């Protein structure tokens, strides 16, 4: 097995891919679109319920209301101002308390208040505002509830620095980019098998191991390059750079390994697509677990891409380091070795 021969084969595959101008343009455009979609999504999360308040309250009451996390009170002088702010979309709703509200409530007299909201406000927000108004009234009246709540926060407390939805999508995008290259490598291999050029290669000084190495490097390189460009542009390399790069590389190697397996499993390009789509669907499942926490149970750990998704998510979104994530990397490497060996074995068997 000569490095020169392997280099020549890699060069040939890359040259063929790049010579196809349409493919080259689409490759770049694909990355641009993924990056644009990511950048287009909101970069922050609105953690507070913003509401307006028209009321004559004792000093410090507003501060007392805002002391509880998640509330932001905007004070207005009159109902008209409050209504204008709601109609202009500055706030979704607000409360108006009459001047004698506190005096009446403390003396046990019936009280009334007005709740304004935009007609475009979702039902759950309207309902939340009504509940809030009631509790604010009790707070103002100084009527505490005889319940002691002992709270325990489970997991990382991200109050004040929540993860934006677009960042939870980042592992999914990266996995999609990598797995799409798996399809490309599988179809490249399948084409070589179908057109029998792979047999022609075997009568040259190239051996089967060299062929796999060359194809594997091409597939891994293409997947790794795209995933790195995407992650770098969206700021995913800002923390734990080395760890993220290694994870992407292992992901790209995994794509190559599965690519061999899929190429061997398929009879022709169409069946390669069928197997490829099946793998893509199954391997995307762990990424949905990041987007919808708690929606997927423990069995997801049996899907190898879980370790790719989880490592990327932990490193990029939470800044977890080598110490926390080395078991994931080790498992990913183990799965990669299994996929590559299995892929090589099946292709070799297919070639007889």
């Amino acid at each position, binding site marked *: 097995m000569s490095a020169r021969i392997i280099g020549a084969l890699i060069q040939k595959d890359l040259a063929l891919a790049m010579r196809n101008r349409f493919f080259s343009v689409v490759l770049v455009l694909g990355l641009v679109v993924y990056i644009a979609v990511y950048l287009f999504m909101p970069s922050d999360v609105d953690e507070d319920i913003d509401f307006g308040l028209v009321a004559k309250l004792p000093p410090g009451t507003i501060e007392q209301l805002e002391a509880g996390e998640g509330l932001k009170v905007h004070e207005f002088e009159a109902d008209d101002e409050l209504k204008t702010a709601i109609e202009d979309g500055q706030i979704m709703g607000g409360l108006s308390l009459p001047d004698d509200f506190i005096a009446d409530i403390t003396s046990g007299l019936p009280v009334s208040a*007005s709740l304004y909201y935009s007609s475009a406000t979702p039902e759950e927000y309207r309902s939340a505002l009504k509940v809030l108004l009631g509790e604010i009234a009790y707070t103002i009246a100084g009527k505490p509830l005889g319940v002691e709540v002992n709270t325990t926060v489970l997991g990382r407390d991200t109050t004040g620095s929540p993860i934006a939805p677009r960042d939870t999508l980042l592992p999914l995008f990266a996995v999609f980019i990598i797995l799409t290259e798996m399809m490309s490598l599988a179809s490249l291999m399948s084409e070589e098998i179908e057109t029998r050029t792979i047999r022609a290669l075997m009568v040259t000084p190239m051996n089967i191991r060299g062929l796999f190495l060359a194809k594997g490097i091409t597939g891994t390189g293409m997947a790794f390059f795209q995933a790195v460009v995407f992650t770098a542009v969206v700021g995913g390399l800002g923390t734990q750079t080395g760890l993220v790069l290694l994870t992407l590389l292992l992901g790209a190697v995994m794509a190559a390994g599965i690519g061999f397996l899929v190429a061997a499993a398929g009879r022709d390009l169409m069946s390669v697509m069928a197997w490829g789509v099946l793998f893509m669907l199954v391997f995307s499942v762990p990424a949905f677990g990041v987007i919808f926490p708690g929606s997927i149970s423990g069995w997801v750990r049996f899907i190898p891409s879980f370790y790719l998704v989880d490592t990327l998510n932990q490193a990029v979104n939470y800044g977890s380091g080598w110490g926390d994530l080395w078991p994931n990397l080790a498992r990913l490497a183990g799965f990669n070795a299994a996929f590559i060996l299995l892929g090589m074995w099946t292709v070799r068997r297919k070639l007889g």
Partner: protein
Amino acid sequence: MNLRNTGVLLGKELIYGPKNFIFIMAVVIPIVLSLVVTAVFGSLFAETPRLGIYDAGNSALVDRAGQVEAVSVSEFVQETELIAAVESGALDMGIILPAGFDEALKTGQITGIDAYIWGESLAKDRTVLGVTIASLARDISGQTIDLTIEVVSLGDGKSVPWEERLLPLIVLMGMFFGGTMLPATSIINEKQKKTINALTVTPATLGDIFVSKALMGVIISLVMGILVLVINRAFGTHPGLLVGVLALGSIMAVEFGLILGIFARDISTLFATIKTLGILLYAPAFVYMFPQLPEWVGRVFPTFYIIQPVVAISQRGEGWPGVALEVTILAGLVILIAGIVALRVRSIREKL
């Protein structure tokens, strides 16, 4: 173009098509996606905080919480299950109600409850859940004040539920997946196997071949568009007009597929292109998902002129006057793209 030849070729496509993997995908995937996207993304963007309750006694709070629209409530039969659900992020908060909770409230005793909070839950969700629990406990305790809330809705906007916002996306996916992929893969297959050259030496012209493939795509795309609307019970009050718009949309989907089939050299290139341009095709659906986006953003994309009339007819009950402009633009675009396809087909014929 010869109608008989086109009919024979279409018959061939209809007989062999269903055995094709892409055909099966074109039928199955939109239906599955329709169900998954609605269920999954509906919950991703829903802003209702999730509360879990483990009741060691028999508190009325559980039933009352289920009636509050501001929160989504689940009851657990084991404390450990509740804690696990909070830890995984399936719940924003889980509370454990001790035995005799209601009696303690009614007799004015200080009672304690344990609350587990998911670390990544938003501050506003924690607030809403906190005040909801307090409000329910207050109702049970009977320590209420005589408070009347006058609710005033401002503006004429409408809160659009997520099921409705997602409809444009799933309609487009239903129509474009099969409508684009079927003719594109069919042409690429014929090109790669050189059967397209063989066909042209028969009485069938290149025009007959392309029209038969297009008809096959239009049938599938139209059926899928109708099916998605039927599944989502969104057929509106003008079915004739709606089917007409869907038919124009199906033709556009197929025209894109023909262009892809002509330009893409192989399946890999097609796949890379779909990966990229697919997002552009579905872009107008995002304008409906996020009403805060200006409508002109959607108007830049050709598929907007399919989805705008579909939404107007199926969800707002509008007739021809309400959609005439968009449908006319859609028809114009369909003719324009057909011209481009015809030019390319002529160029291929000259080469052959």
